[in-house]
């Protein structure tokens, strides 16, 4: 990746724009824009975590929204019980998601292909119905969060700009973490297993352990996104982990560029911005986004990011 190729420049510009966005919205008073991009950043974090297992690990998990929900419910339930400290809520959200990923992964990773997709989907739906059955915490109707996570006056999540920057910092930190992981010993093993599992076994890797660890890391990261999302919407309901939400996350990853570091961020911006624009035109906006995704999959291998990478040669 040379510093002069258009892809690098565009990604650098994108990051700069994200950092400077609150200046613009503060100046123009465009609160809507800031809220939209806070949401985009949180979903980009979730998509980035999915990309770790889907793109780099080749694990077609169809239940990733479950971790978004678990992270969200951890914040919601603790707030409901009067524990509003973010220093408790966030670690609980991450740990609970990691634990759930450990359970799902240890069962589902024994299978391959369609079975793997089905088991992750089944676990996702299971946790959805569990949440819908939590009478104490609003069951189907969900749970309102009256106070955002408290960080002892250090950071104020109720301040839109501060919250935006917290989300952005978490996203950048996680992107950096993924970048380190992908190029580490662990990351090479994960990508090697995606490429040829039998070969990796034959040269001496216990592949199950490595895939499981990767699955848990992705789950924990998505749980973090869930905790942020609950703070953003100040509300949590089972619908956040309905299976179509897992599908949305997949679309974001594929649209942006599967197995590319910034792909999920680009895909999430494209997806949520399209959703915003198109749903203003028609309530059947999915009719437009469906064929669009089809075109990306058929002709734009590597998604938007892959297309950017080809610009330099084109």
């Amino acid at each position, binding site marked *: 990746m040379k510093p002069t190729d258009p892809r690098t420049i565009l990604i650098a510009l994108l990051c700069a724009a994200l950092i400077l966005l609150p200046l613009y919205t503060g100046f123009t008073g465009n609160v809507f824009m800031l809220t939209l991009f806070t949401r985009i950043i949180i979903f980009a974090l979730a998509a980035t975590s999915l990309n770790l297992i889907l793109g780099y690990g080749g694990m077609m998990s169809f239940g990733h929204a479950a971790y978004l929900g678990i992270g969200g419910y951890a914040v919601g339930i603790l707030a409901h019980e009067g524990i509003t400290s973010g220093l408790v809520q966030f670690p609980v959200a991450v740990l609970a998601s990691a634990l759930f990923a450990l359970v799902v992964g240890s069962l589902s990773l024994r299978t391959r292909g369609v079975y793997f997709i089905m088991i992750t989907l089944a676990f996702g739906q299971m946790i959805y119905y569990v949440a819908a059955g939590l009478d104490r915490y609003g069951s189907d109707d969900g749970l309102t969060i009256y106070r955002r996570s408290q960080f002892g006056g250090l950071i104020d999540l109720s301040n839109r700009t501060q919250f935006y920057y917290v989300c952005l910092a978490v996203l950048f930190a996680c992107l950096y973490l993924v970048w380190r*992981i992908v190029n*580490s010993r662990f*990351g*090479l093993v994960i990508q*090697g297993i995606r*490429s040829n599992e039998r*070969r*990796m*076994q*034959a040269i001496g890797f216990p592949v199950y352990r490595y895939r499981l660890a990767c699955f848990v890391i992705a789950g924990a990261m998505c749980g973090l996104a869930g905790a942020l999302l609950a703070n953003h919407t100040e509300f949590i309901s089972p619908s956040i982990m309905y299976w179509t939400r897992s599908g949305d996350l997949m679309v974001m990853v594929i649209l942006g560029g599967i197995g590319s570091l910034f792909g999920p961020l680009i895909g999430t911006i494209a997806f949520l911005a399209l959703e915003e624009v198109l749903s203003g035109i028609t309530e059947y906006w999915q009719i437009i986004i469906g064929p669009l995704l089809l075109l990306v999959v058929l002709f734009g291998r590597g998604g938007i990011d892959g297309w950017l990478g080809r610009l330099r040669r084109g």
Partner: protein
Amino acid sequence: MVDPLLRVENLVRRFGGIVATDNLSLDVARGELHAIIGPNGAGKTTLISQLTGQLLPNSGSIRFCDQDITSLPAHRRSALGLARSFQITSLLPDFTAIDNVALAAQAHDGHSFRFWGNARKEGHLREAARAALDRVGLAHRAEIVVSKLSHGEQRELELAVALATKPQLLLLDEPMAGLGITESARMVKLLQELRREVTIVLVEHDMDAVFALADRITVLVYGRVIASDVPSAIRSNEEVKRAYLGDQHAVTRHG
């Protein structure tokens, strides 16, 4: 006599009604090049897969380095020093040649639960990989993505990957498959050098190569051993001639 490096006893593997490995026993002595031949469908690859742990036998036992490995998973056998190459080239197609080999070295250099440091900058892994590539004559192709290598180069890379695991026993499943005459000759020359360093079990259809290389030859027919001896004895064995060499020799020759 010294204990053999590999001892297979009364191995049986069935697929439904078919007995692919039929009460098979086999010894491989340390330092020898042991060839396994037999007509198509004799169960050669099935045997290799059981030796490496991709497939478990229904009964019988496999001992390697005085240790019962019959039910050990593939990665544990690799750790003990058993390496294989695949009949149909099986590499990481979207990785470079050197990454393929470095991963094999990495697999035998402690665990890989290291999430931070750049693995491609670990000097000793790269050096080990470079040495193995050099060994098979691929050093100049190190940075090429595997899918862009020629078939012959991929076969050589298979060997380099196996060598990078520092094996005690190398199981080669038809290393000459699909190679042209000059490529085959290079492979034979390479195996002649390697056999001085490592014990080799060679499954091969190319009879010229087998008789040029092997210390001992085991002949499989329908999953059974019908003969196991030095090449000259195999050549004159009547049963072997009938079952195998007689009809198929001409067909399986290269050229």
